[in-house]
């Protein structure tokens, strides 16, 4: 399955051709993760492995509840546990980490392989593995440190937002499995409205900085968090406070491309014009005679 034909594509990596976009009424979808309702049971991780037919190898424990300790080519979502102590209080912050499905995806911007990363019109950013060349540029493009390159096939993997389920009207596997309904799925609009109810509730219970994480630096995301401390996202296992595509990546994948090709073309054209206007630089007969004179009878 290359891409899902029933979904239109908004952006396609490393491609100049216009993608198919006849379906203009695509609804933008979003997953809303309510961190305040998560109990850290890892049902979402299990559901992700099961639906995507992945097997995470048994690893080791680093003394925390993080298991596995990081995202891997097989674990596209991981619960990250943070013990947040302030005053006499201890809060256990549990964030389900994974692809944020940025509206302006850095991975797609950085990818050099045509069609290896696509963004559907519903907002889902998906890796099309058969087109992936394993260069790791998506890792450099991502502001959230999400893609992982497999050591087995040198291809990049990450959460697909269960695009194959969404395309047939199903919610992602993690949302389906969550026992506390900490993961919602629906239109982005509905998810924002729903988050507002949750935030009002959290504020009424003393979390005065509760808020929605939908960072504008990447154009908003199609995975959003309800955070009790939205003023400090980095509390949640290093969630970026203000994620943006790195200016280095912007330069590399932006102005540098046309300017470089133009410089090379200019050098070629300059050489051509020089040759046809000045003609070749040839050795004259006088030069040849003087050269022979200098060498004299000597065999060089």
């Amino acid at each position, binding site marked *: 399955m290359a891409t899902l034909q029933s979904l239109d594509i908004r952006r396609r990596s490393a491609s100049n051709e216009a993608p198919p976009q006849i379906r203009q009424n695509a609804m933008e979808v979003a997953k809303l993760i309510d961190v305040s309702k998560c109990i850290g049971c890892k049902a979402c991780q299990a559901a992700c492995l099961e639906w995507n037919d992945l097997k995470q190898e048994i690893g080791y424990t680093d003394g925390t509840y993080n298991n596995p300790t990081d995202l891997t080519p097989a674990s596209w979502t991981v619960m990250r546990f943070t013990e947040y102590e302030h005053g006499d209080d201890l809060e256990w912050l549990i964030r389900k980490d994974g692809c944020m499905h940025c509206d302006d995806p850095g991975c797609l911007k950085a990818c*050099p392989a045509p069609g290896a990363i696509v963004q559907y019109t519903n907002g889902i950013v998906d890796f099309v593995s058969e087109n992936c060349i394993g260069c*790791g540029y998506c890792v450099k493009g991502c502001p959230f440190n999400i893609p992982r390159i497999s050591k087995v096939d040198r291809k990049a993997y990450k959460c697909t937002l269960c695009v194959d389920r969404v395309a047939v009207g199903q919610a992602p596997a993690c949302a389906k499995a969550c026992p506390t309904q900490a993961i919602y799925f629906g239109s982005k609009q509905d998810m924002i409205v729903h988050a507002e109810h949750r935030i009002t509730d959290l504020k009424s219970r003393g979390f005065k900085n509760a808020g929605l994480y939908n960072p504008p630096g990447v154009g908003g995301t199609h995975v959003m968090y309800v955070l009790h401390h939205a003023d400090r996202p980095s509390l949640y296992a290093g969630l970026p406070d203000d994620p943006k595509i790195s200016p280095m990546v912007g330069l*590399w994948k932006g102005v540098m491309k046309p300017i470089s090709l133009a410089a090379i073309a200019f050098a070629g054209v300059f*050489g051509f014009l020089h040759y046809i206007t000045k003609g070749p630089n040839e050795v004259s007969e006088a*030069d040849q*005679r003087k050269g022979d004179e200098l060498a004299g009878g000597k*065999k060089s």
Partner: protein
Amino acid sequence: MSENNVVSRYTTAARINHWITAVSLILLALSGMALFHPSLFFLTNLFGGGQMTRAVHPWIGVVLFFSFLGLFFRFFTLNLWNRDDTVWMKNLGAVINDREEGLPELGKYNAGQKLVFWGQSILILLLFGSGLVLWDVYFEDYTNIDQKRLSAVVHALCAIGAILIWIVHVYAAIWVKGTLRAMTRGSVTRGWSWKHHRKWFRQEVGKP
């Protein structure tokens, strides 16, 4: 023209060294450009597809680095800058208009050739260093993400610089007739030596 009428310019070993460098630089430029600009991705077909291009590019880079290192140690003493080079550079306009008569007699290399030499030396060193940072298969764990992003920019910029210098280098060889045989046969004519590198020619024939 009999072999008696030519001046030996490069040993066979030096020429093989240069050919290995030349071929690897062209392959690197093609495979690198393929991964740099989407419009040139089709060039990956020359290397057996995208994955193969990604896998083979760094290895060609290793060949180029060590091959160029050989050229560097062969020729760096001949490429040290001197006062005549400064005069030559000031008269670059006359040079590109093929009016070299008033300029100082030159040793084995003119200032333009020396700039090509030092330019490529610096850029290839930077390309090798930044290339290792980007070579995830072996070196992924040795650097952090900011260093990798910086390396991507440095690698691309240096590659463009090296390609531009290469264009100047190749064009000079095409423009200045009689040059290319130094690369293909190792020798140049007496007339060519008199016109372009007279001081070197005098040393070669032992008549300074």
